[in-house]
């Protein structure tokens, strides 16, 4: 059985217009978790609660089986946290920020830091304000990865990156997860990232954990369907979710139990993105101002 490194138990946090409700999940060693949900669903608040930046109303966080707060410095030394990119001290050189950061970590690996700079094509002599958004993200990741963290909590680590850089980052995640058994929990709105590298999905909806399962399990309930629209007339369209008809073709989602009924169509594994859209928007028929 995989070793549980971090546990979140019944986390509750109430704000005026939003609350986290009984958020519970656990992270196993050497696993990549995709943390998904709409904007404002509670992803960032959850990550902040884990790192003790936000005080939950109730619930607890266990790191290696012990209360996080009681061993805060040790736990934080072994966890890398990043919100977006390294968007601080715009007038300071990246080198200075890295130098300061390194003094806080006993396990800072300068050689690895230098390798990551080369890998991400970053010039540490540059000031932060001279970095593009993508470079800030890469530099933030460089800092988070250079101290040999056992757990990486990353909030939108791939936003702002071009497709090539994103692919490099995701490759990097897969490699450190395999070679160093690092656990990664990362939130993203680029759901295709998760198709590429996530082992498990933690889905948060309106402050509650909606689903916590492996990617396969998450996808197992539905199938992606597509075909020519004229063929559809003989079938019950109500059995198809998120039905889109465009240029005499259609696509949508069906429940796996209806597989036989729709056997003459092309049926494939759905993407995480379409599943998320289906969960959040249903058939997408809500009223718009237009």
């Amino acid at each position, binding site marked *: 059985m995989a070793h549980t490194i971090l546990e979140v138990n019944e986390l509750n946090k109430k704000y005026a217009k939003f609350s986290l409700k009984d958020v519970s999940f656990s992270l196993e060693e050497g696993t990549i978790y995709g943390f998904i949900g709409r904007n404002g669903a509670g992803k960032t608040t959850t990550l*902040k609660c884990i*790192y*003790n*930046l*936000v*005080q939950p109303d109730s619930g607890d966080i266990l790191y290696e089986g012990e209360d996080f707060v009681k061993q*805060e*410095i040790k736990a*934080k*030394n072994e966890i890398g*946290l*990043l*919100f977006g990119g390294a*968007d*601080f*001290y*715009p*007038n*300071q050189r990246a080198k*200075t*920020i890295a*130098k*300061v*950061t390194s*003094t*806080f*970590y006993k396990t800072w690996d300068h050689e690895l830091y230098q390798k990551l700079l080369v890998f991400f094509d970053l010039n540490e002599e540059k000031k932060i304000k001279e970095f593009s958004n993508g470079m800030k993200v890469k530099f933030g990741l460089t800092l988070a990865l250079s101290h040999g963290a056992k757990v990486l909590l990353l909030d939108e680590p791939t936003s702002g990156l071009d497709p090539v850089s994103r692919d490099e980052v995701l490759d990097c995640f897969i490699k450190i997860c395999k070679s160093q058994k690092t656990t990664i929990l990362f939130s993203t709105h680029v759901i295709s990232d998760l198709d590429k590298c996530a082992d498990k999905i933690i889905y948060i909806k309106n402050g509650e954990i909606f689903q916590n399962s492996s990617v396969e399990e998450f996808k197992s309930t539905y199938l992606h369907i597509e075909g020519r629209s004229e063929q559809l007339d003989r079938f019950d369209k109500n059995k198809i979710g998120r039905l889109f008809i465009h240029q005499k073709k259609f696509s949508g989602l069906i429940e796996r139990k209806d597989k036989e009924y729709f056997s003459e169509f092309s049926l494939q594994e759905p993407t995480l993105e379409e599943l998320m859209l289906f969960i959040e928007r249903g058939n997408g028929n809500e009223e718009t101002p237009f």
Partner: protein
Amino acid sequence: MKKLLFKELRLCLNPQVIVFVCLSVLIVIPGWPSLTSFIYTFMAIVVIFPIALANKDLEFTALLPVRKTDLVKGKVMLAVSIELASILISLPFALLKVFVLNNIEGFEVNVPDLGINLILYGIVLFLCGFFNLIFIPWYYKNPFKIAKVQIVSTFIVIALTSVLIVLFILIPDMSIFVNTFTGTALIVQFASLLAGILVFLSFTYLSFRLGAKNIASVDL
């Protein structure tokens, strides 16, 4: 603690702050109330906080392996460094004024003043401790807002300094007493300095404790 101070000095000091700290050399100006030159010390402290806010210092520090209370500790250490640096920088110029410049004919202006003595430094240390005690706990009630805390704290400490300056002008005997270095007056000199040091240390420690208590309930 060393790491926190290194971080503060490396990332949070900027030229504006350094200039303010160095302005304590103005103690050398003839006829200037000696306390005035330390007003810039408080300016230096209130300036570091909005700059830190703009640089997302809080967001950066919170990601490091530190406790929430360390965010306060770092800034208190920076404030103390600024205050002590300001005092130390003023010392050679104070000595220069007392032992060299005041002996030059026409340099000294005869206005009743606190002057340069141990009582001055006792009062400066008291004011620094007092300022820390107002500013730090208040600011950390909501570290994302600074304007009101900055304005009110500066106003209070400047008002207090001004009252002291005016008091010495209105009561010239006080000025004569504090600038006497014999007998009882000398004992008062040392006692004032010691009291200043004790108030500075205790008020600053209290400011950290209260600031740390206040930030504990702040969501970063």
